[in-house]
């Protein structure tokens, strides 16, 4: 691995240059202080680069939306004839991802590859470079040290790492670690922006990683919780308690970086229209309701159980990786203060 140094003063210039060759996605602080991970190409003149913010606390909408948008067309039709609307396999640079979101993206990748391949997602994700900026000021609700999904990811010297490049904030500059051949080529292609990393920057980065880990306040016994979920120890009574409080708005699932459920619907005007899909949420009463009216999960507590067991039991049993990456979005978003971290805490106590 060859570490490099990227001075903070060079970040905007680097992104301005990458925009010429890549669809460049980066965290941009919008009006109202929300940070969105959006495409900045063409937005340079409108000041997107000035609003670039790698110090962001968290993104409300997770970057999985780049491969799996909230709403997308599957095909268009006119007079009974279908026209495909598959996305081109463009080069995409995802610059400034957090570790939890990157792990979530890899989890979603595997899901869309399994069984039948999802051409829409896989085309969008085919030529992708993932640049991680480790989280040095973790938000209050996240717990990535417990789920082992951050705040930094390990550099794998024997094989490709999860990231292509990982950036560590060391004050005036980022220490940049390469995690893959693609990452190395990227740093070489844009070498005018990178400097040789001095010896002390490497020790600084080690300190920064440790400090970031210590800054993650919320800690849960994740492994014990998963074990208890897999052994079916989680009692109905707790689900019923959650069900009493939950207002079934689906917010936690719309912001969840590993949720992949969608609804499909047609839109038509005269003889033309399109078939589209949009994100769906398993806590909705209509999610399992059949045309006959029969609904296997009509009772609220069953839907609460599904929501948590999918992430903490079935995902783990199917893939060996839990569907929770500890980002804390569900708790931050919930209007009645329920988060998966609390459910995990309850499960770990059993």
């Amino acid at each position, binding site marked *: 691995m060859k570490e490099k140094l990227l001075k903070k003063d060079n970040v905007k210039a680097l992104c301005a240059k990458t925009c010429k060759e890549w669809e460049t996605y980066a965290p941009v602080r919008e009006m109202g202080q929300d940070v969105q991970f959006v495409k900045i190409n063409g937005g340079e003149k409108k000041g997107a680069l000035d609003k670039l913010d790698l110090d962001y606390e968290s993104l409300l909408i997770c970057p999985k939306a780049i491969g799996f948008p909230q709403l997308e067309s599957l095909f268009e039709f006119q007079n009974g004839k279908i026209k495909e609307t598959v996305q081109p396999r463009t080069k995409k640079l995802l610059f400034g991802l957090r570790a939890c979101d990157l792990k979530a993206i890899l989890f979603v990748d595997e899901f869309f590859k399994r069984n039948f391949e999802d051409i829409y997602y896989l085309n969008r994700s085919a030529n992708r470079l993932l640049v991680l900026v480790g989280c040095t000021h973790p938000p209050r609700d996240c717990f990535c040290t417990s789920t082992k999904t951050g705040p930094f990811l390990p550099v794998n010297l024997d094989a490709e790492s999860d990231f292509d490049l990982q950036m560590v904030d060391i004050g005036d500059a980022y220490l940049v670690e390469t995690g893959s051949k693609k990452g190395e080529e990227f740093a070489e292609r844009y070498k005018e922006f990178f400097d040789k990393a001095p010896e002390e920057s490497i020790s600084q980065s080690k300190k920064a990683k440790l400090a970031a880990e210590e800054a993650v306040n919320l800690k849960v016994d994740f492994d014990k919780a998963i074990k208890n979920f897999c052994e079916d120890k989680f009692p109905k009574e707790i689900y019923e308690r959650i069900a009493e409080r939950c207002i079934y708005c689906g917010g936690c699932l719309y912001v969840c970086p590993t949720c992949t459920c969608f609804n*499909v619907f047609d839109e038509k005007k005269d003889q033309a229209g399109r078939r589209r899909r949009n994100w769906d949420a398993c806590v909705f009463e209509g999610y399992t309701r059949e045309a006959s009216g029969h609904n*296997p999960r009509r009772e609220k507590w069953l839907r609460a159980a*599904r929501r948590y067991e999918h992430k903490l039991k079935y995902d783990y049993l199917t893939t060996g990786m839990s569907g929770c990456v500890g980002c804390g979005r569900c708790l931050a978003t919930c209007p009645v203060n329920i988060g998966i971290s609390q459910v995990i805490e309850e499960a770990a106590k059993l």
Partner: protein
Amino acid sequence: MINEYLPYPAVVESIRNESFDTKTFKVVFEDKKLAGSFDYKPGQFVQLSLLGTGEAPISITSSPCRRGFLEFTIRAAGRLTRALHQLKPSDRTHIRGPYGNSFPFEQVKGKDLYFIAGGIGLPPLRSLINSVFDRREEFGKIKILYGAKTPDELCFKDELKSWQKITDTELLLTVDNPDEHWQGNVGVVTTLWHNTDMSTSNGVAYVCGPPVMIRFVIMELLRSGFKDENIYISLERYMKCGIGKCGHCNIGAKFVCVDGPVFSYSQIQQLPDKDKALAV
């Protein structure tokens, strides 16, 4: 990479009324090559589309040994199926598939086969029944137990008569609410157990119908000596994609669309109670 979400145009060749709310559609792919090569197994389903209205999983009721066309028996129950009922011959639908697993067929050669269906549950079994009849001598005795709410709601009325004439085949019908012409059994499908000997040690049962019926039928089958692994049930769930992606048909770690829709009773017992594979 194949785009599994793209359906292919297929024309309605003929429509037969089964009852006041159920019709059978005979459909042929417009692409002649596809019409000839489209292969499926009894128990599988397709995603059937009306562009502009939507798409739904519909089981194939025709038998794969009869090539060149597909048949679907559809009750007008929801928005899409009601729109399908407005179709006329030569109208166009769109189809993708086939999806899901199938009823075991080759593995049950030489065994006695029992088909138990309720209402609109017969259409998916009909695909298998006709496949079995096409190779009648390879199987043991056959019993078909079929119940509907009223005599009118029995599907394939003419075909049922022809089934009765097949060697060593017993057809038992029942209805919940008889009319003045009905001379057969009255009651739910499990009341047919009084009319025939269902005891067996190696018989194979295929069950399809409403959840409450399935539950009571399984109880009776077990009492008659059927083994858990010899009872096959076709489950129904709300689905949007049919290919294990949209999530709606999940039961535990399984998807009914790709891991099912056919499950043995031993497999069903491994599914979490919470997901109510058989409960109402």
